[in-house]
């Protein structure tokens, strides 16, 4: 149980951290494609007797780099490149597993998570790899945020944007394989995307989204692992359903916040100062008490009725009110 919880905290932190960048680049499904390739990696491990985690990391990383390069240089569009990865990965995985003489049940533990069968060697790898992902995802966050925000602009800033793009893809591959034992390869992507989607409902900034997503990821995976221990449910689906429940709770809050913002924005006093307010026509006359124009109290200031419209003093000029 303690081991399972440590693994849950690791994946709960790492998956949304790297997932935030994927969602920002509008590559939310990349994790899913990588998961399929990692499946082939697991099968290679089963076939050769090497540790499935190692072979999965290597193959998933290779697949992730391939898709990033296809996207950056190739003529293949992002979603077609993803589709190629999906089908190749799952077909290869199932074929090789059958070749290795393993049953579908063995495959299932990797596809949907099976945290109870975690060995301490695997736990050590999970802690090390997710630690690495976190260090890079947090330490390089200014650069990674910049290239995900606007790749061309950051290239002109002199950032090696393509190197960082490949780095994000590799980190995503490592994260998917690390999440293999807790949520499973087919659901790892959910833990990368769902907490981010939930966090955005209530957040206006990247930093808050990032931190909140990691927090939600940890809560969902720790709670999911505990529930699956108590109720005997598979850990992966339990974690993902809990994460989705969080989204279902947050979505109405987000909708209300967005509605309030759009409803109030046109009348936001801060917005009006910088937004493009109506300037009154040039006039040398200075409005003041007893200037001859009727004065009207308007909120926190006084408007002067001027040829049928109202002027309010603003800096060196008058606004139309």
């Amino acid at each position, binding site marked *: 149980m303690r081991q399972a919880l440590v693994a849950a905290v690791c994946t709960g932190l790492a998956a949304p951290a790297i997932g*935030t960048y994927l*969602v*920002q*680049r*509008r590559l*939310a499904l990349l994790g899913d494609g990588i998961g399929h390739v990692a499946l082939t990696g697991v099968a290679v491990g089963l076939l050769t007797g090497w540790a499935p985690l190692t072979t999965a990391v290597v193959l998933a990383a290779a697949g992730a780099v391939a898709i990033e390069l296809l996207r950056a240089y190739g003529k293949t569009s992002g979603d077609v490149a993803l589709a190629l990865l999906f089908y190749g990965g799952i077909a290869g995985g199932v074929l090789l597993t059958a070749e290795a003489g393993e049953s579908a049940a063995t495959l299932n533990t990797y596809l949907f998570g099976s945290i109870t069968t975690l060995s301490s060697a695997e736990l050590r790898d999970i802690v090390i790899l997710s630690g690495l992902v976190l260090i890079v995802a947090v330490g*390089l*966050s*200014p*650069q990674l*945020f*910049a290239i*995900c*925000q*606007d790749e*061309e*602009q*950051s*290239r*002109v*800033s*002199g*950032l090696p944007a393509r190197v960082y793009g490949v780095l994000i893809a590799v980190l995503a591959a490592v994260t998917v394989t690390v999440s293999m034992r807790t949520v499973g390869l087919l659901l790892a992507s959910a833990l990368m995307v769902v907490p*981010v989607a939930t966090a*955005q409902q209530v*957040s*206006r*900034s*990247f*930093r808050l*989204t990032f931190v909140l997503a990691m927090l939600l990821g940890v809560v969902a995976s720790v709670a999911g692992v505990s529930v699956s221990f108590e109720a005997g449910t598979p850990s992966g689906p339990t974690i993902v359903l809990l994460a989705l429940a969080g989204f279902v709770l947050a979505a109405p809050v987000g909708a209300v916040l967005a509605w309030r*913002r759009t409803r109030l*924005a046109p009348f936001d006093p*801060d*917005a009006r*100062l*910088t*937004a*493009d307010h109506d300037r009154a026509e040039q006039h040398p006359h200075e409005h003041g008490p007893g200037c001859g124009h009727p004065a009207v109290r308007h909120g926190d200031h006084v408007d002067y009725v001027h040829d049928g419209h109202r002027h309010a003093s603003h800096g060196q000029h008058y606004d139309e009110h």
Partner: protein
Amino acid sequence: MTPPVVAVDDVSIALSGRPVVRRVDLRVRSGEFVTLLGANGSGKSTLVRAIVGLLPVASGSVELFGTPRQHFRDWRRVGYVPQRSTAQSGVPATVTEVVTTGRLSRHRFLGWPTRADRVAVGEALEIVRLADRGRDSVAQLSGGQQQRVMIARALVARPELLVLDEPTAGVDQASQTVLAEVFADLVARGTTILLVAHELGPLTPLVDRSVVLRDGRVVFEGEAAQAVLDLGLGEHHLHEGPTPPRVPLTDDAAWGQGRV
């Protein structure tokens, strides 16, 4: 004598095998405000993308501040505003966060914002008249305000050259006026500006020189570019209504002389 800020010599650019820019020469000197005008597909965006290093040139040479572009590393001296209708991405981000990314050209390895970065971000937002919107999400801003966020992001590293790709496209009239004020400020500060646009609109009085491209070639260079565009020489478009009266070019010789 200091070299020109931008020196484009006999440059041709091909995109997927199709020639888009053909043997173009262009000089932008320190402190100048130069615009590249032309219709869609005239090659003006392609040319600036090659100048800032986003596209390779097929032949010819591009120099920035006297250094061949492929050896140029001092990217903090160049601010770039890509052609984009929005500053949003898949995750919410505040105006300050987006503008801060522009500072990365000043410290590449440790990107965490310093006090100097925060001061610079405040100044850049001041210049584009968005000082009090720093904590707002960019998604809440209008299209014109988002363009100003991208301009602030390009300005925040205090570049000597600002390259903008159609910042006025699809921007409402009121925001265009604010943009014109922003450019007037920048010109007064001595920033060199290379701007791609469809038409100049309220920017006309600020511009020193315009270059009109058509089918990847320079067809006019000089102060009267807007007039050339209006005559339909830079751009083909169908007029509605009666055929306008023929306007003779007063001085045919001006064609060659406007060029550098």
